[in-house]
């Protein structure tokens, strides 16, 4: 038997796999992966190259930053005039509040924003937070309204700017949230009468625009009051905004209630818990956690919607800007002012949406599988 002895011949080794980490592979994968991708990248780069330099030049290079009207007029059309902000920022932030008293709204705002920031921090979610809010709200109104502890009284008609925006948003949400929970529970109730009332309220309010609710608050609420009593315009608008927001929040909460498995309620009942105990200890903690993103979206919406009070002649941040631009000298630089106010709204709304993502992740640590 003569046969070739079997010789082991290894096949050629393969090339190492392409690296997937690092900058270059990332660029290849995300920007130059295939013809359509390359084309898109080039097109967008061209677009950016055309759009960014003029924007940069307008906004920074040729811009006027000081409150110098003559320089602004000279720079018009090729440079931004941020001077309008430098000149009018007090009016934009505080509206028609008396000029020499404007430290009061500033402190009041700082307190309110501080309370909001404290409420965002989870270890602070204790009973004392409610006390803190009561204190901060009381201080806010004392500072804004005055007439106490030697502060000059300032009528609500002169309140404006950022404090007004923050106050309307915060107060309407603080009142609307409990109301919304009640309405959502009512809508899930087995009692037909209460259910109908809640459905009617929610559907009626959600069917109409906020503007019409605000018009109603400012034109019709005075007629509702008994003869001889008046109701402050801020309070009227606040009532309108609260009722409006509560209807939307109620739908959000109802979504959470519906998503809860029925077994949870049955288990609570079999443990002998009554309706309110079941609701408070079993249903709401789980239901509200489910709807955190939607709730935060409603909050952001409510914050943006405060700008609508401009239309019923209140000078919130948007309205105060219109007031500031009433000055004929600076009227031309409307756009820069608008951008500035848009940036303020953006910062707050963006912070809220980021916070919503964060809190959603942190509340769901118990149920997440990872």
């Amino acid at each position: 038997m003569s046969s070739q002895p079997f010789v082991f011949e290894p096949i050629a080794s393969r090339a190492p796999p392409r690296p997937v980490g690092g900058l270059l592979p990332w660029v290849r994968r995300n920007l130059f992966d295939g013809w359509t991708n390359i084309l898109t990248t080039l097109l967008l780069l061209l677009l950016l190259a055309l759009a960014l330099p003029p924007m940069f030049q307008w906004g920074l290079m040729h811009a006027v930053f000081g409150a110098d009207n003559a320089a602004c007029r000279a720079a018009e059309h090729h440079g931004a005039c941020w001077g309008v902000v430098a000149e009018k920022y007090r009016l934009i932030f505080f509206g028609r509040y008396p000029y020499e008293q404007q430290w009061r709204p500033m402190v009041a705002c700082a307190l309110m924003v501080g309370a909001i920031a404290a409420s965002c921090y989870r270890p602070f979610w204790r009973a004392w937070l409610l006390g803190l809010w009561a204190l901060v709200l009381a201080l806010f109104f004392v500072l804004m309204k005055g007439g106490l502890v030697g502060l000059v009284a300032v009528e609500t008609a002169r309140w404006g700017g950022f404090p007004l925006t923050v106050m309307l948003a915060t107060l309407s949400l603080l009142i609307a949230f409990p109301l919304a929970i009640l309405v959502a529970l009512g809508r899930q109730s087995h009692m037909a009468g209460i259910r109908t009332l809640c459905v009617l309220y929610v559907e009626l309010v959600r069917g109409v625009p906020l503007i019409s609710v605000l018009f109603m608050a400012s034109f019709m609420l005075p007629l509702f009051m008994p003869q001889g009593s008046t109701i402050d315009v801020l309070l009227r608008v606040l009532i309108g905004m609260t009722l409006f927001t509560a209807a939307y929040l109620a739908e959000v909460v109802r979504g959470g209630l519906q998503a809860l498995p029925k077994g949870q309620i049955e288990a609570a009942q079999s443990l002998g818990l009554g309706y309110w105990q079941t609701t408070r200890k079993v249903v709401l903690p789980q239901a509200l956690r489910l709807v955190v993103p939607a709730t935060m979206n409603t909050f952001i919406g409510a914050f943006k919607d405060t700008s609508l009070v401009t239309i019923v002649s209140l000078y919130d941040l948007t309205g105060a800007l219109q007031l500031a631009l009433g000055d004929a000298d600076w009227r031309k630089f409307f756009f820069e002012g608008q951008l500035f106010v848009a940036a303020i709204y953006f910062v707050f709304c963006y912070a809220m949406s980021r916070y919503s993502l964060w809190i959603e992740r942190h509340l769901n640590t118990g149920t997440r599988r990872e």
Partner: protein
Amino acid sequence: MEQGRPDLRTASALSPKGIKPARPAPPKKRDWSWRSQALRSLLYQVVALALVISAGYYLLGNTLENMRLRGIKSGFDFLVQPAGFGIGESIIPFDSSESYVKAFAVGVSNTLRVSALGIVLATLLGTFIGIGRLSRNFLLRSLCGAYVEFFRNVPLLLQLFIWYFILTETLPTIEEALKPLPGVFFSKNGLQFPIPLWADGHALTLAGMSLGLVLAVWWGRQSRRHFEASGQLRPVALPALALLAGLGLLGWLLGGSPAALDIPESTELNVVGGGSLTPEYMTVLMGLTVYTAAYIAEIVRGGIQAVPFGQHEASSALGLSRGMEVRLVLLPQALRVIIPPMTSQYLNLTKNSSLAVAVGYPDLVSISTTSLNQTGRAIECIAIIMACYLTLSLLTSWFMNAYNRRSLLKER
């Protein structure tokens, strides 16, 4: 004891004495003690209704008293009186001697005109941006993300002010209007563009296109039936387009190919003729489209991401082409997630069109407030606004629910 069943009770091994026979159900008796749920829920409801009714009665009484004291008249009789104000723009011709009813109708038509087009444009733009956010291309992805973040986080009212500024202040005056195309004028006074003059021949064009549409639908159904019977695909999109365009063209040719255009011409002071869009209309349309598109983009992205990746793998394993996969597998499942929130965005857009009052576009709210200021009938005017929007909302949600029912999961 029933026939043929072992008597479990006596055979029970658990209890040597056997289980006592079940007690008879207690007689059905209405329990009206304080502990009974029936009584308590009845009471709660009576109390709630009584509270609401008495509050309503109190407010109504106050209102009537206040109106009597201030000499405010009430009732809808003012609707037939002449309005006494002109309306800047309308598709229904209107002049100030016509009645308030007509003015409100113009307002509703203006609201509808801007929201309907806004819904179509926002859906298109939003869908592109939503898909763009899922692109493999980093630049496209982040630009679309920046778009969504920026436009969602700035109030619509402010955006409307900014658009209005851009469209009225930065554009040239009418004398030196931009002319991107011959016959198109773009200036502070809005956009003027040529429109075809109506000729009898156009009727034939329309007839041809309608016939083409019918035939295209027929062809689509036919091909689907063929596909389901034999598994063979026939082209649908191209023949349908060809039918529509071809028959339209044929009708146009048969009608004597009317080509007369109403081209706007610049005179010394103004541009006359042609179709035109006012800056107010463009502002509201632009603002609503751009703002709502950001929300729609998020909905579309969420809907696409809600389809599990396994569906894509499964359709590849079945040998579906990319187009078929999107059409037959991905879209039907994504749409189910997309449609309900999309409905509420459409409703929001319609309701947000009421912000038009801020830039002076004569929509329903703007006309109502003008009427309110002229007649002092606050309750009636606000009731009209609310009734109109409520009707619009209910109609839209009814329509979208009907569409949603078609896209729902078909379960046995």
